[in-house]
């Protein structure tokens, strides 16, 4: 490796002139960042719109830099039930995550480690819901919820999502990959099945727990059509549904964008922290299960 070659050009084949290659590479980098900027723009625009001075959303030319005016957020938080909706979404999401972890780890564990007559059938039934298109089930699901007296309750936004095929699948795969010797040792030590699951298997399955928490968080926090159909009471509305109702009031773009940003914030924060894990979790589940 010659010392004059810059670090970025190390793997360039010697046949090509380095100048042209560098040009091509910086062109590609520019394209890459252009694409990234294009995708980030709408989120940036929410911020610009929400923090601009009153009325600036309706002026030409538009402001292109975010302002420092956070009055819109104050107006929204004080003037509406926004804290309530945030709390609703937090409660619904938190409870769903806990329940999914419970049902999925138990079921995943049973599929791997416990005597189960008709294991194959149980397996197919547990994973089969992934093949059912959600839009097609909405009407009969409404009818079922009606008969169970679940319409218009928090429970209707939690219980139907308290078990998901994908999370059961993830836990089963992970538990199946764990060495069976651990279990034998634990049995000799007098650790029962459930205590083994709780003390050994679940802590060892931390990556899956993390994945399931993230996926459930995203799905639950973002749910809209389900609460739109299944609930009418604004007091229990999660944030996405409340946003829809807020839009109805023909508020100014500044306020609407401030509210949208508030709804978006938890997702973006979690994404900022666990970005790589989220990407592989979201892409991994859909592609892995499809096989």
């Amino acid at each position, binding site marked *: 490796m010659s010392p004059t070659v810059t670090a970025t050009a190390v793997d360039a084949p010697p046949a090509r002139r380095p100048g042209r290659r560098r040009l091509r590479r910086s062109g590609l*980098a520019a394209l890459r960042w252009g694409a990234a900027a294009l995708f980030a723009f709408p989120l940036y625009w929410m911020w610009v719109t929400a923090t601009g001075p009153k009325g600036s959303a309706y002026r030409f030319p*538009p402001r292109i830099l975010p302002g420092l005016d956070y009055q819109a957020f104050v107006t929204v938080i004080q003037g509406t039930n926004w804290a309530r909706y945030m709390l609703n979404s937090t409660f619904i999401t938190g409870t769903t995550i806990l329940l999914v972890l419970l049902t999925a780890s138990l079921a995943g564990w049973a599929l791997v480690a416990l*005597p189960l007559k008709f294991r194959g059938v149980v397996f197919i039934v547990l994973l089969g819901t992934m093949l059912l298109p959600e839009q*097609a089930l909405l009407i009969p*699901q409404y009818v079922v919820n009606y008969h169970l007296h679940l319409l218009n309750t928090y429970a209707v936004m939690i219980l*139907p999502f308290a078990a998901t095929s994908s999370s059961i699948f993830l836990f089963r795969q992970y538990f199946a990959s764990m060495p069976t010797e651990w279990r034998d040792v634990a049995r000799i030590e*007098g650790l029962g099945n459930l205590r083994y699951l709780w003390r050994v298997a679940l802590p060892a399955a931390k990556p899956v727990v993390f994945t399931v928490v993230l996926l459930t968080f995203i799905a639950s*926090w*973002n749910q809209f059509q389900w609460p739109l159909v299944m609930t009418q009471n604004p007091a229990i509305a999660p944030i996405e549904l409340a946003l829809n109702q807020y839009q109805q009031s023909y508020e100014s773009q500044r306020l609407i964008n401030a509210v949208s940003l508030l709804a978006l914030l938890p997702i973006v924060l979690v994404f900022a922290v666990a970005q790589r894990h989220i990407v592989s979790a979201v892409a991994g589940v*859909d592609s892995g299960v499809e096989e």
Partner: protein
Amino acid sequence: MTVLEVAEPVSPLVGAPPSSPAHRLRRAVRPLAGYLLVLPALGVLIVFYYVPALLLFVISFFHYHLGGAGSSFAGFDNFRVLFAQPLFWQSLVVTGYYVLVMVPATLVASLALAMLLRDGIRRSRRRKGGAAQALIFLPHVTPLVATSLVWVYIFDPQYGVANDVLRAFTSHPPNWLFSTHYAMPAIEIYSLWHSLGFYMVLFLAGLSNIPDRLVEAARVEGVRGFAAFRRVIFPLLTPTVYLVTVLATVNTMQAFSQIYTLSGGAHGHGGGPAYSTTTDALLIYQTAFTYNHFSLASAMSLILFAILLLLTLVQRWGFSKLVFYR
């Protein structure tokens, strides 16, 4: 469990002594233990997914009123009514338009993005390219209503950025969401923005499975640039192409929230203007929850179900001829 046999003199603290009631109870429960643990998950899935799936068939063939009272068997009446409705056929056309634009556009754009990002990621060891990937993926996890609202503003014919830019090229920029011609393209642009990052990541995963030595070998043979892509990379990528096609079809056929929000769901019931964005999902929603025709909505759902099943089978058959690497 051979280990267990070796360790025969188990400590007396383990378990209850034989033939005690506790021991007998444990014995009786043991074969059921698996079912006890599976039960919570099984219960939820059966009650909220499998029972509705069966109910879908029942409701579709009944004149059904919510609660069941006054319902009667209808045979194919619901389907006959549907087939006589121009709006039903129009919703299929609108859905077809949406899907036929979205699926090819998704394939081409997400593959192009993946090819663009691939080099950056490999070279910079996931630093620079990683950040670009994160920014492109981020929209996919954002809530649909919250981010649709800013797009409503972006597409605003008068104050939106889209037309601020377009006015540099034309004096008559489109009315976007207020126009029967441009409302659907606007929704498609939003949907692509929201989903491309996801499919791009699938393609990136597919690309990372292609051994470097194959591309390297092609390069030695003088195959580079687009020829290398067409003759080496793309054939090896067909499993991912299949996966993305299936997922994109299933997801776009069922799109609801962004269409509802962008077409003014909060002010009416969505699908406007003049039903130009009323896809099957929106029509099902309106039929059931605006007009209370549960049977008709159910029959439509059943048709949607059948179409999805058919498309999946056709795609599987089509790709079985195409995919020669798995």
